[in-house]
């Protein structure tokens, strides 16, 4: 394509202008977008902006993480609990490339995030200058949008567009790369919020016919089932969703990003679908006559083998992103639009139903799962501690009011299975990308995004050590996050697969771990380790009662497995209980 960098003017109305440098303009833009907290790490090419951050300390809280990856996960945690755009900032070269894991995570989990990176001066672009990297090229496949600014005059419009794109429609990460000379350059600054971008249609137009067709199918169904995802939360449609579920009487199951949209204890909430989800909703996916997918994308961890997934059912897909419809599962009816709008349109067309017999099927299967698995997970009689009883212990004290931030692996599946939630936006986890090391920095952002709620990070001993340096951020900011490491001295999920599918050949999964309590104490964080059942409840209470940050290591059974389990390539109805 040509060399022209065309920025389309969204609105020609110009507000009062003032003469500013690019670096100061960046701060003004962030403030205009309502940003109060950002996460980052300084370096050469972004130093001018940091110089401005120094001047604006009273208005913008910059959190110095210990690694740029931590900055992105913290921004994600902040965004996920607050519903606002998370902001991360880094320098050029390695600073920018270190953001990539968090950006990819935000892309696949639809998290609104704006990343700002410094770049070498524009006359040095392409010269292999010190700390120069093509971050636009590198970040393209994992961003919703990205753009390189080489002139200060581009700053207001591009940043306004960045925030608009990040949070509108199906949210996602945006990266803006700003050359150092553009940060110094003076120009006439005026800010105008972005309200539309030509060529970008964030929310498809609602088609009333599709809503009507969906309602007819639901009203005539004998065994309907809902599977909802994060789209309910991102669409701020919790109320509408609850009303739809209650009026239609349809059993509703969730994906791990959808959980907490309605309370765990809601009588129509039948649990989790997917690889380590609940027995009932997985098995009955292949028995229902109408499958109503709401704001979820039929990830392979949810569907198992697609060839045998819900083949008997008519599928209704409520979705904001047209590219998701028919991507993995053919929809008989697609209802495009924002979930808040589509569910509100659906509600009046629904007939009131109970589906009592059908609900009893879920209850029967739950009882089987309870007797075989859940009972032993949350109230074990064996000597070793289980991950499930730790979650159950946290539930007892938090009463479901805590934000639970989990990492990736066995502890994550246990946390999602057993954590109780009363409020929406309470489960923060790396779902799509499966990023180990996510939880500790994400918990920092989550606590800052929801300062009045307890935030508990549940992390495995493997993932914890991938971003353990963020204990420094916790110490420095005194952010009162509660950190629970469920330590089995193994990369537990990989070990479980090795046990089940690789004849117990435990290749590189056993960890010789350090003294985690000593490390936490090295950062002056209150810390305790528990290995006996009689000490567990007291330690959890002490942790949740502590005013500041707290680290709790729980030494759990080394070789426990997470069940139920749908082995890769198997059908959801072939879910294994042992």
């Amino acid at each position, binding site marked *: *394509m*040509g*060399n*022209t*960098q*065309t920025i*389309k003017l969204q609105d020609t109305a110009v507000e009062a202008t003032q003469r500013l440098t690019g670096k100061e303009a960046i701060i003004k833009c962030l403030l205009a977008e309502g940003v109060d907290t950002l996460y980052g790490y300084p370096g050469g090419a972004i130093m001018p902006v940091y110089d401005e951050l120094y001047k604006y300390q009273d208005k913008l809280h910059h959190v110095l993480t210990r690694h740029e990856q931590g900055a992105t996960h913290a921004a994600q945690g902040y965004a996920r609990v607050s519903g606002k755009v998370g902001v991360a900032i880094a320098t050029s070269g390695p600073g920018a490339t270190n953001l990539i894991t968090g950006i990819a995570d935000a892309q696949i989990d639809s998290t609104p995030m704006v990343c700002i990176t410094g770049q070498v001066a524009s006359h040095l672009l392409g010269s292999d200058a010190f700390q120069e990297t093509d971050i*636009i*090229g590198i970040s*393209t*496949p994992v961003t*919703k*949008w*990205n*753009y*390189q600014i080489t002139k200060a005059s581009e700053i207001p419009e591009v940043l306004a567009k960045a925030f608009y*794109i990040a949070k509108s429609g199906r949210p996602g990460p945006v990266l803006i790369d700003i050359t150092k000379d553009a940060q110094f350059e003076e120009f006439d600054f005026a800010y105008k919020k972005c309200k*539309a*971008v*030509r*060529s*970008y*249609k964030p929310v498809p137009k609602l088609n009333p016919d599709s809503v009507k067709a969906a309602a007819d199918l639901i009203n005539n169904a004998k065994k309907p089932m809902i599977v909802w995802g994060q789209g309910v939360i991102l669409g701020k449609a919790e109320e509408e969703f609850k009303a739809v579920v209650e009026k239609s009487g349809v059993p509703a199951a969730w994906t791990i990003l959808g959980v907490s949209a309605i309370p765990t204890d809601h009588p129509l909430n039948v649990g989790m679908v997917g690889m380590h989800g609940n027995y009932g909703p997985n098995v009955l996916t292949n028995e229902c006559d109408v499958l109503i997918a709401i704001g979820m994308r039929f990830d392979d961890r949810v569907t198992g083998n697609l060839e045998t997934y819900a083949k008997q059912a008519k599928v209704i897909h409520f979705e904001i*992103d*047209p*590219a998701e*419809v*028919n*991507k993995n599962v053919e929809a008989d009816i697609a209802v495009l639009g924002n979930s808040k709008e589509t569910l509100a349109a659906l509600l009046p067309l629904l007939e009131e139903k109970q589906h009592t017999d059908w609900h009893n099927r879920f209850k029967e299967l739950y009882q089987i799962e309870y007797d075989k698995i859940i009972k032993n997970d949350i109230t074990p009689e064996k000597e070793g501690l289980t991950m499930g009883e730790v979650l159950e212990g946290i539930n007892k004290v938090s009463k479901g009011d805590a934000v639970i931030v989990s990492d990736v692996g066995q502890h994550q599946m246990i946390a999602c299975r057993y954590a109780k939630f009363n409020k929406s936006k309470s489960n923060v986890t790396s779902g799509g990308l499966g990023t180990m090391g996510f939880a500790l920095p994400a918990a920092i952002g989550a606590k800052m995004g929801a300062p009045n709620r307890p935030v508990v990070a549940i992390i495995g001993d493997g993932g914890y050590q991938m971003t353990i340096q963020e204990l420094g951020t916790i110490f420095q900011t005194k952010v009162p996050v509660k950190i629970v490491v469920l330590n089995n001295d193994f990369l537990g999920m990989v070990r479980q697969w090795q046990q089940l599918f690789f004849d117990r050949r435990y290749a590189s999964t056993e960890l010789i771990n350090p003294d985690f309590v000593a490390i936490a104490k090295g950062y002056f964080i209150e810390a305790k380790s528990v290995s006996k059942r009689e000490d567990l409840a007291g330690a959890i209470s002490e942790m949740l009662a502590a005013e500041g940050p707290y680290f709790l290591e729980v030494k759990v059974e080394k070789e426990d497995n997470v069940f139920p389990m749908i082995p890769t390539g198997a059908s959801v109805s072939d879910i294994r209980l042992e």
Partner: protein
Amino acid sequence: MSETKTYTVSIYTENNVGLLNRISAIFQRRKINIESLNTSISEIEGVSKFTIVINLTEDRVKKVIGQLEKQVEVIKAYYHTDEETIFLETCLFKIKSDLLFEERQIQNIIKESSARIVTVNKEFFVLEKAGRRSEIDLLYRELSAFGIMQFTRSGRISVSKEEMKISSMLAEFAE
């Protein structure tokens, strides 16, 4: 599985740096080979058009179109079979001028292929031919016998038989 076929993907976009990268990445990620790619201005001022030829099943083409349209700076993407479009490629041959006078057969080939001589000088002449791939391939084979100094062929360019309502679409975006 349905059969693979040749499809022409037409993408109307904003004219921004980096968009080529973003678009090609969608094909690359799914390991889809791009048979030919052309970018140009379109019938609308400020709107670019990508013309991409791929060999794929229709099911997969549809998914690729969905991913393309999802990009912020993509206005609209279409896919068409060969029957649904008018398309051609163009090519240039650079050949020694001596041959034009020494080999009578070359003059006949040029005439029959309705190729056009763009320029002639003492050392070489340049022949331009627009048409279907098969016509260009035939001309290439015929001229190869005499020796080709340089050859280049463009990507496919095409217009669809059906209307592409880009202008009204742009008006809708502005709503």
